[in-house]
């Protein structure tokens, strides 16, 4: 097995949460670049929202169930609970024995997975089209008859702790999102991340799982989205049969999120043994994902830090060779948002120099805005993103459900690009000044530990000839 490690691979783990978030908000569909995604949507009497998209081009069907609960709904002394619960939802139900959910889906020629974010927990199953009923059976069982046994809880406690190590603790820069959330979202339920803290997972009692299930895993807190080779009228009947009998739950509690704007810049120094190169992250609070400014700020950060023609790449990576990599990450959630810029420095570059260069670029864009060409480039990149966003049935099902749940408009799957097109050049300068403020910045440093530098810095003087 050859491990072709590239920086992108290292960053992947770091960037995964950001990538997921920006993929979601990029999921527009260019009005002039693709066929519209047709769909029907309705509520069952128990409150379950249903979205159906029929497309017969490939004989597969994607099922996507979104529960409107994530880590921000957790108690501060139970961080990681929603994600842990997601693992337990693969254990079994009253009618499906422990470990068999996965076996049924694999044995039917399908695959499945789930993920937990700050605002949502989602479950997806992809199957050959003739196995649609299997997905409906499993997802309705999960919503109706979820069952959590002690043996499953104990095993998944261990698995989740290993997941945290793989993704965060044993990974260079793996804790970036955790640091950002703790600082930019301080005092709110966004201040911890979905993976949470291992110690809290140990504290959870069996009765808490019951309560969580009854509170959040109810039809009135869920969206069922199906896309692919299905017949809409027939599918409606099946959905009624499988999901109709599930009782509506109580109204779902929603946490209040009050973000306090910072009055002075913050500096955080992260000391971790496995930090091979210095990294700095500048982050600011930003708009919620549904605000028009979210589109503008996403485009601005893209102009600053995405691609080889971006300002930061040209300045930090190419021209001065101070950095090995730069990234921009817009991170907009349901009730709060942030925007950040990351630079990983070349060996031996003082971290303060990276900060200076990043800040100079920020000041520049605040003073002078962006060029017309940069603006047009950003629009073009959004158009490409929109054209590629709905390739697979799974993406269609997912985008439809997310737009419904968080934007109240599933049809954004077809029209979101328009929200980017509404952003003007002046908006980009305006949001730079509004959000990327001197007093509002959080600076996070990953410094290279002195004792942990076994590899000598590459010698720049030795040029072959």
């Amino acid at each position: 097995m050859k491990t072709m490690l590239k920086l992108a691979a290292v960053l992947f783990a770091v960037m995964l949460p950001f990538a997921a978030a920006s993929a979601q908000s990029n999921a527009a569909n260019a009005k002039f670049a693709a066929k519209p995604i047709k769909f029907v949507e309705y509520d069952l009497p128990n409150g379950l929202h249903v979205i159906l998209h029929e497309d017969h081009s490939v004989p597969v069907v994607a099922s996507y169930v979104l529960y409107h609960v994530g880590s921000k709904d957790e108690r501060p002394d139970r961080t990681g609970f929603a994600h842990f619960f997601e693992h337990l939802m693969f254990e079994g139900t009253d009618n499906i024995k422990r470990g068999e959910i996965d076996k049924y889906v694999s044995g039917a020629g399908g695959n499945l997975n789930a993920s937990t974010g700050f605002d949502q927990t989602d479950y997806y199953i992809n199957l050959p089209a003739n196995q649609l009923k299997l997905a409906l059976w499993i997802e309705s069982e999960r919503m109706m008859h979820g069952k959590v046994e002690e043996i499953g809880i104990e095993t998944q406690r261990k698995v989740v702790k290993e997941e945290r190590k793989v993704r965060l603790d044993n990974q260079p820069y793996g804790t970036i999102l955790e640091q950002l959330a703790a600082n930019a979202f301080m005092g709110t339920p966004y201040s911890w991340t979905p993976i949470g803290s291992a110690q809290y997972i140990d504290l959870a009692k069996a009765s808490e799982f019951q309560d969580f299930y009854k509170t959040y895993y109810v039809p009135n807190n869920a969206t069922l989205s199906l896309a692919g080779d299905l017949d809409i009228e027939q599918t409606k009947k099946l959905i009624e049969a499988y999901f109709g009998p599930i009782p509506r739950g109580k109204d779902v509690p929603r946490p209040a999120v009050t973000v306090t704007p910072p009055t002075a810049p913050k500096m955080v120094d992260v000391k971790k043994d496995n930090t091979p190169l210095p990294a700095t992250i500048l982050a600011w609070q930003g708009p919620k994902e549904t605000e028009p400014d979210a589109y503008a700020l996403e485009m601005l950060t893209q102009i600053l830090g995405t691609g080889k023609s971006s300002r930061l790449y040209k300045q930090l990576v190419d021209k001065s060779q101070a950095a090995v990599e730069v990234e921009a990450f817009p991170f907009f959630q349901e009730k709060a948002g942030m925007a950040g810029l990351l630079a990983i420095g070349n060996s031996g570059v003082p971290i303060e120099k990276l900060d200076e260069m990043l800040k100079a670029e920020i000041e520049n864009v605040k003073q002078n805005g962006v060029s017309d060409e940069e603006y047009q480039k950003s629009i073009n990149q959004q158009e490409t993103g929109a054209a590629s966003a709905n390739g697979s049935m799974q993406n269609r099902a997912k985008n439809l459900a997310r737009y419904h749940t968080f934007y109240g408009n599933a049809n954004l799957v077809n029209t979101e690009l328009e929200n980017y097109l509404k952003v003007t050049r002046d908006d980009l300068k305006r949001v730079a000044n509004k959000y990327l403020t001197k007093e509002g910045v959080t600076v996070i440093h990953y410094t290279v530990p002195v004792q942990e530098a076994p590899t000598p810095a590459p010698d720049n003087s030795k040029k072959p000839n």
Partner: protein
Amino acid sequence: MSARPTEILDRTQPPSPAASSPARFPDWIEHTLSNGLKVIIYEQRTAATINVRLYIKSGATADGTKLRLAAMTYGLLTRGTTSRDANAIAEEIDFLGADLSAGAGLDNATLSLSALSKHLDKGLDLFEDAALHPTFPEKELEFLRQQSLNRLQLSKSDGGSLAGEAFSREVYQSHPYGNPSLGTEQSLNAITTEDVKRYYRAFAVPNNAFIAVAGDVDAGTIIAKLEARFKAWPQGVVPEIKFDLPKPSEKTQVILVQKDGAVQSAVHVGHLGVPRNHPDYIKIYVTNMLLGGYFGSRLNLNLREQHGYTYGAGSGFSAHLLLGDFSTSAQVRNEVTADAIRETLAELHRITAEPVSKSELEEVKNYIIGTFAIQNETAPAVMNRISLIELYGLPRDYYQTFREKVAALTTNDILETAQKYIHPDRVHIVLSGDAKAIGSSLERFGKVSVQDADGNSVS
């Protein structure tokens, strides 16, 4: 979680499937340009995007002693041509919202364009320019060299990478598949623009290449556009390179790559395997799927679901053009490292000693056959598959007949395949981790050698 009154349908049993509609692997068009350059086209008009990829059928195995020569060469394709400097290329391609990138693998190298189909002409101009008129500027080579040196350093703090590199080194020995995949400081510093130019001239010729196209375009249109741009590219004589074959392992050995302070060990267990075009490849693929190829595989169910040692465990036959390897993988917490190796070996023994049950084989066959269609949804995914046929010399009907061949396998086929290609008594056990925390627990598996990140022995 509470019992419900009886429902309309029987919830106690899984529903039975409806009649299945047969999924065909899509067809594609092949055409040869006037200079002998082959073009493979898969039309899929669902999204308004197009992918065009030039494959050169030589990669890092032709590096010689200058490891990363292929990677540097292809990295430079998009960093300067006779009419554009690196910045101009980046500006033009980003402005289109398109992507143009190049890179080298072990056996081949690629230059890839993806763009909205309405920008096809401008995208192809840049694609052609990078492929046919690169200048390999000195300044850009220095830039890539520094980037590569830094990436090399970064990789040494990644436990998974350390273990993977050490595993390849042990299994492939002096064969180029065992070379450090990011090179060495010495090799990176030794590469010159003359090396790069010579390398590209020697291997990047149309008789050692093909172009794959997928997406929103019709075959006639793209053939005409490619003919106009690539017809003047002359053929050449590709140097032939011979390698010594590595020797199969004779007894189990343990290599521990030291990583102070690691909270997990990254563990591989395995040995030499088969090349990609091996006639038994599909049998091997199915056998491995059952052992460690998917979530419901034996290794994952044992190490993750039964024991909670890891977030995920698996195995794979990594099959290249000339050779391949077999390896299990898992990242486990320090204190269960030896237990995880013991369970891994037990699973290798079990699959070579006992026939699998019919139901277990049926499940895995259904999984492979069903997900095969799901994997063919998008144009780039289909393009990748078709390209494998060309790269590894597979039969043209490889994917058309793939599912029938999987469906025909018996439990006896699986046992025979496992016995022939998996050898639990002579494996390389290669891991990275904190030697202080785990070192002594490994002695029971074989002789333990402790190494640093570069493969030097430490004790």
